[in-house]
């Protein structure tokens, strides 16, 4: 085991979302506190649409782009931005031992094919034979790989040459929390020197909306900010890609890399949520496992979804803690798996600017703050399961 404590530094950030691409675009949009959303394309549902980047800039081969669906292109693009930001792009020796943990759901369905088959099945004399015939002739062979959870990581290996270990975690919001937690733990224990962590989502999908609408979690128009969804709970799915390069301090120093922030701690748990108050109690316990966070020069970036119950309990907990709060889901939507990574990336931006960005809230829970900022607690509370916190600190 390592003799001295090994610090996990964040040395690269890659972002693309409805707010645009890159650190500056995200900072400006967040600071303006103006949400970007679409109430019409998927009416009655609200989504936060991706500001389409020029994928060629990070995925130069059209052939590679064609092998991916949008969520994979988005993620592969954001991963490239993160590697660029860390100064690792093209550094084959380092990329060959760079580990990767991706938080992923599944890829988009082909709506036209699904609709045609489900319609045809209704009148088919032999539904079984009909399904076999149609799937065999209508599914594109490559669609499977474009949907497969671990193929975002696979595409990142192919496009960017990241070929250390490669793990894909699944399981909604919790997968992103665990991806960051395991990456940080491996670095602290000497099991990794540098890890690319992140994920992506295409939130502009009827098949995805359906999955959440089963449980009444898809936000219907009119759009409201996250803290203002009493009586109209749910989240607006967001399309985004978010990646971080997390690097052991001495490894970063040895190559002259600039620390953007320090990832001090990541903690997580699974409350059964059978009783009211379970989420709040879980977050309270987790907060107790973080190093003490003084009230000044600190803020919370919340991953609150707007889901009934969970968001109310998180709000209660945060109100009691008294730190200034921003729920990024109000501005950029909820991306499920990568949301925790997205919020850590936004925390890094805020720490870089030395202050918190402006509020985006119609309830007054989020208040403007002028003071300097040294540390950010990032929350991740799954819409139905999983709680996590990260403490991100400025390196001064």
């Amino acid at each position, binding site marked *: 085991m390592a003799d001295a404590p090994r610090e996990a530094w964040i040395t690269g950030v890659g972002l693309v979302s409805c707010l645009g691409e890159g650190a500056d675009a995200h900072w400006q949009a967040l600071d303006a506190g103006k949400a970007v959303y679409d109430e019409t394309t998927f009416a009655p549902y609200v989504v936060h649409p991706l500001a389409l980047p020029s994928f060629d800039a990070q995925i130069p081969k059209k052939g590679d782009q064609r092998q991916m669906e949008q969520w994979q292109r988005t993620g592969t693009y954001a991963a490239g931005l993160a590697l660029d930001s860390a100064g690792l792009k093209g550094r084959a020796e380092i990329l060959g031992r760079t580990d990767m943990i991706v938080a992923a759901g599944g890829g988009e369905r082909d709506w036209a094919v699904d609709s045609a088959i489900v319609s045809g099945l209704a009148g088919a004399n*032999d539904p079984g034979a009909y399904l076999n015939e149609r799937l065999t002739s209508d599914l594109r062979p490559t669609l499977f790989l474009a949907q*497969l959870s671990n193929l975002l990581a696979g595409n990142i290996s192919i496009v960017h040459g990241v070929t250390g270990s490669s793990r894909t975690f699944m399981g909604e919001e919790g997968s992103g929390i665990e991806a960051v937690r395991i990456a940080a733990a491996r670095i602290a224990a000497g099991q990794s020197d540098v890890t690319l962590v992140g994920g992506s989502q295409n939130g502009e999908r009827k098949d995805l909306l359906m*999955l959440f609408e089963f449980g009444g979690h898809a936000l219907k128009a009119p759009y409201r900010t996250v803290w203002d969804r009493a009586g109209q709970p749910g989240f607006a799915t967001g399309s985004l890609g978010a990646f971080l390069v997390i690097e052991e301090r001495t490894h970063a120093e040895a190559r002259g890399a600039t620390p953007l922030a320090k990832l001090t701690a990541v903690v997580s748990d699974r409350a059964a949520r059978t009783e009211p108050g379970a989420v709040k109690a879980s977050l309270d316990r987790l907060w107790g496992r973080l190093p003490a966070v003084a009230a000044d020069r600190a803020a919370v970036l919340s991953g609150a979804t707007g889901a009934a119950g969970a968001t109310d309990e998180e709000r209660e907990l945060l109100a009691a803690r008294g730190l200034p709060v921003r729920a990024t889901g109000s501005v950029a939507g909820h991306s499920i798996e990568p949301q925790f990574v997205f919020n850590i990336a936004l925390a890094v931006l805020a720490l870089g600017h030395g202050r918190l960005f402006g509020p985006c809230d119609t309830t007054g829970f989020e208040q403007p703050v002028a003071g300097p900022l040294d540390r950010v607690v990032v929350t991740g509370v799954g819409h139905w399961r999983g709680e996590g916190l990260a403490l991100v600190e400025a390196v001064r």
Partner: protein
Amino acid sequence: MAVRDKAGRPVVVVTGMGIVTSLGAGKSENWSKLTAGRSGIRAITRFPTEGLKTRIAGCVDFVAAEPFSAPLLSERLAELAVDEAIAESGIGTPGHFPGPLFLGVAPVEIEWPQRVELAEAAGAAGHATYDDMLRAAATGRFKAHHERFQFASVADHLAARFGTQGMPISLSTACATGASAIQLGVEAIRRGETDAALCVGTDGSVNTESLVRFSLLSALTTANDVPEEAAKPFSKNRDGFVMAEGAGALVLESYESAKARGAKILGVVEGCGELSDSFHRTRTSPDGKPIIGCMNQAIADAGLTIADIDYINAHGTSTPENDKMECLGVTAVFGERAPLVPISSNKSMVGHTLSAAGAVEAVFTVMTLMNQRIPPTINHQIPDPAIPLDVVPNVARDARVTHALSNSFGFGGQNVTLVMGLEPA
């Protein structure tokens, strides 16, 4: 044996194992059939196969999961395997497992019966769109589908049932998934984060669309006529893998804590290796470098050399590509010793259990060590002259096995090798 390895890390041991495959439920039935060279591959009866190129699989039809969905069957299979593993290990108390859960599980999605059900509920049968299905979903009548088809649901239910600690991790590294779950458990124990971990791989996803998807990638055998003979790893006439279902569960513990509670040590997870491949989405680098590096890393991580390895539990899918590349990798790693190290494929009998395979085969590897008997590669009638390895053809063999490799290679360039050994006397 010391409680720390040569690198100063806690030694990780196996104290409980459970398994379900198309051969049956439990270690005893599986081992007797596996070493007798029996196949679990049959014609598919779960759904109509008319018009499909491949009509066989290693389905686990003796475990009830109604109404059928892949996550439900995956959960049932995992429950059986975990029950067996925890009972054998004697760890914790009922409903309380003193460590985290790492679950290898197939990606989850809504399936055709649900789509049809939604279209009917929307009154749109015959002309259904996603808008219609969404309207039906919004009625709240299908609330149960939300939880069932969340990716985290299988792990969440297992965590609740077995009382594992913290947030369970669901993971997918394609056909290496089960091995990755074990690797994550090993790493957590080595970090000193926990004294125990529950590592599981499960897969119950033989349904029409999954079958068609693999079929469209030309990955499956079409030798439907005699299902038991369809999986023929390392044979010249191999023509694809057979989809299969199953689950494997391992209770991992630090040697120190296992000894302290007087647990029986079944085996030692001595090392893990992993390297990903950037060559292609479904194919291995032609030079085999990533799989060579993966095996070498695993052997080095175990503090061993190639001379110490006396058995390889192959990935051995029975696809032309995999078996050729695995042979190339083994030949490069072992050099002159390559033809002398027995290598066999459990998939010749249980098929390719996909997300479960790495865990299922890790259980079989430990059983190989415990029983000092190597299960065969069956259906080896036409040897491939390009594969000059000792594939333990057709008949099980007694052998002295002290350290064994278990290989898992998957789509997306995922490669994991585990090194398992016996507790030194």
